[in-house]
């Protein structure tokens, strides 16, 4: 099932699985009506769902997570022995290896997904729904998942694979249903479809994502030298080197949790315990001081706009001044907010960045995802920063908003900014960056011109010192 963000894929699947109830229409499973609105009924009918955001309890074991809900609530006793036996059988049959007694908190992302799939199989699912399963996997792990899915279909399972990524859908499916704005606009045989066809169906018009134009990089803007954070752990940085120049976009590829967040925190001013140096336009970064960093010419687009980017319960103008509220421009006598000036500036920014809203005094909570991101862009880009940190800037946005955000980044690049683009979407990185580096287990590879490394190579690097134990990252050197 293919569709852009907001098309309704998850809603449809939630109806199938009983979380929501449709206002009209029926669902038939094996010729029988499925009682609506009941997850129990869906599970009994053989439907299993692997959600996009894992529904696992960290503090409980794998076995407990899998067996929840499988026994009658009123029984006085867990039948541990037969649960273990059944689970062992499934692990064997499908090759989804995991230790039943380990706490979920100690599992890797790939292993957690296996637990999710086992949960569905344990309940004798014959129809498996997977909602954006590869969002958090490396290319190799995705390949492994596809192989597992193919072996499942060989055993007779029916699988609904939801994604907005064209190449995955093409790789794994037999048939494709395209959903757009809540309606199915086409059902095709995979063998008979092309990317362009699908993209057009998905969005409803000829899709052109912005393309990179050739511009020569200029002076050095950001110099990260030998930055490490002390603690141990996959997300802690080890000897990071990176240089960004004017007029260029440098991308960092990698699965979440490998240090990108830590690096972003350091560059955003949220973290100051690190060794090594970060120079911005030749001067030391005012570490741990977000407002000073912003004042020195940095625009930040945070990873999670709801959690970090905006205070949803405040007004739009209040969110637009959050980074420079203490500056002379926005406050008088050091502590009184200049409301008039702030609102006036907000008006300009709203117009300039096309934020669809009722005005600067409207509540930020009411903005759609795309408009909220535009607000963040307005805040970050209004002062023409020399360095822009964009962390997953188009995650969860519809195609229109994606195109807008990417256009803005390209405009900034043309103007002379240096942009660091952190993304989990390899397609985006391949299309939008001048140079690309890979982050894995806290180490950053050299940033080579985009296109010099193949996707397969990048995928291997993303996995890094994985459970394979291979020292793929041994050849990482200082990159410029």
């Amino acid at each position, binding site marked *: 099932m293919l569709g852009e963000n907001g098309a309704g894929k998850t809603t449809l699947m939630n109806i199938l699985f009983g979380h929501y109830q449709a206002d009209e229409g029926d669902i038939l499973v094996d010729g029988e009506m499925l009682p609506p609105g009941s997850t129990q009924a869906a599970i009994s009918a053989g439907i299993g769902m692997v959600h996009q955001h894992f529904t696992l309890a*960290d*503090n*409980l074991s794998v076995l407990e997570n899998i067996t*929840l809900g499988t026994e009658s609530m009123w029984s006085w006793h867990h039948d541990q022995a037969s649960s273990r036996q059944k689970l062992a059988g499934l692990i064997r049959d499908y090759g989804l290896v995991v230790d039943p007694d380990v706490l979920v908190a100690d599992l890797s992302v790939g292993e957690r997904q296996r637990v999710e799939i086992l949960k569905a199989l344990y309940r004798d699912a014959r129809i498996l729904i997977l909602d954006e399963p590869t969002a958090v996997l490396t290319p190799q792990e995705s390949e492994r998942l596809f192989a597992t899915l193919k072996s499942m279909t060989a055993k007779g399972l029916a699988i609904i694979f939801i994604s907005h990524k064209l190449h995955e859908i093409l790789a794994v499916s037999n048939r494709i249903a395209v959903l757009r704005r809540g309606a199915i606009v086409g059902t095709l045989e995979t063998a008979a479809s092309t990317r362009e066809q699908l993209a057009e169906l998905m969005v409803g018009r000829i899709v052109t994502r912005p393309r990179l134009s050739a511009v020569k990089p200029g002076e050095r803007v950001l110099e990260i030298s030998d930055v490490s954070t002390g603690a141990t752990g996959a997300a802690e940085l080890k000897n990071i080197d990176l240089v960004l120049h004017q007029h260029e976009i440098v991308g960092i590829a990698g699965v979440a949790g490998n240090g990108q967040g830590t690096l972003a925190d350091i560059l955003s001013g949220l973290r100051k315990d690190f060794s090594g140096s970060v120079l911005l336009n030749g001067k030391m970064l005012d570490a741990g001081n977000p407002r000073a960093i912003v004042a020195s010419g940095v625009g930040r687009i945070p990873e999670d706009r709801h959690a970090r980017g905006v205070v949803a319960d405040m007004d739009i103008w209040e969110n637009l001044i959050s980074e420079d509220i203490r500056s002379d421009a926005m406050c008088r006598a050091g502590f009184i907010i200049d409301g008039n000036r702030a609102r006036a500036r907000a008006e300009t920014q709203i117009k300039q960045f096309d934020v669809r809203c009722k005005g600067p005094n409207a509540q930020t909570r009411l903005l759609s995802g795309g408009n909220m991101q535009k607000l963040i862009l307005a805040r970050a880009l209004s002062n023409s920063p020399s360095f822009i940190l964009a962390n997953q800037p188009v995650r969860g946005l519809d195609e229109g908003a994606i195109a807008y955000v990417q256009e803005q980044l390209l405009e900034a690049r043309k103007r002379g900014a240096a942009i660091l683009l952190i993304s989990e979407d390899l397609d985006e990185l391949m299309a939008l960056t001048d140079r690309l580096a890979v982050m894995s287990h806290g180490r950053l590879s050299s940033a080579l011109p985009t296109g010099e490394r193949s996707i397969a190579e990048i995928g291997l690097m993303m996995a890094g010192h994985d459970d394979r134990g291979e020292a793929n990252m041994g050849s990482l050197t200082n990159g410029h």
Partner: protein
Amino acid sequence: MSDFIDILLTAGFWAATIRIVSPLIFGTLGELICERAGVLNLGIEGIMTVGAMSGWMWVYQGGDLWGGVLFAASMGAVFGLLHAVFTVHLGLSQHVTGIGITLFASSLSYFVYRMLLPDATTPPKIVPFKPIAVPWLSDLPIIGEALFSQSALTYLALALVPMVWYVLFRTPVGLAVRMSGENPVAVEAQGINVLAVRTGAVMVGSAFMAVGGAFITMSWFDAFYFGMINGRGWICVALVIFASWRPGRALLGALLFAGLEAIQVRAQQSAGAFIPYQFFLMLPYVMSIFAMIVMARKTRYPQALLVPFRRGERV
């Protein structure tokens, strides 16, 4: 110091400890169940008051003791239901709801008491639970008097500890409760109604709390007077954190506190001349704060504690 050791060696001290620990066990187990399901129940102080008043009043009006206990438990469950409607179904602030329920429940208890006994200047008494001596075991030295000559409610409290452990950790219901406090979306995804699980847990927990209050008026003392819970409910909340949400540890923590309070009464008698009694009375509260500090770094909170669950909400 030798005074101190002497105190520890008397049967009376241990008997008092076990008596004092009983309401703490009920309260802590009750709060533990609520929090395991993801709901912070700050109505505990008020619910214990309700239990104290209603159980006592049942007996005063002519009912039997166990009927009183059941009545107190059901009153507790009613207030638990009220709390659950606000916090679980409407998703309102668990902090403020709890404080509101404490104020409402305690003031309602006092109001009803005054309504039914308008002229009582000295609190009237009932015939409380009498200690039951377990044959043969109660003749053992020290332990005999301490452990095996307690009232029926105390035996119930002690028996509840392993029972609650078993239900929480060895039954499907308990797993659902624990999951609701860790990842309610996971519970919903299995077709189990999270709201029902949380509501049930809060009601059961509140029933326990009310019985804890009833213990004070029906087994320990024999009258009801104002301010009788005296912060014990809050101490139970601290004890739950101290116990890392585990029933066994809850018992240990409660025993520690009860021991402190038992010592305090006796130490007052010996050291009362030098140290004002108020400082002894302060000990439980201060120790509770310390208990929370000690456990603050180490604990793994139930991940969904304080997070309201909205059905169908996807991240």
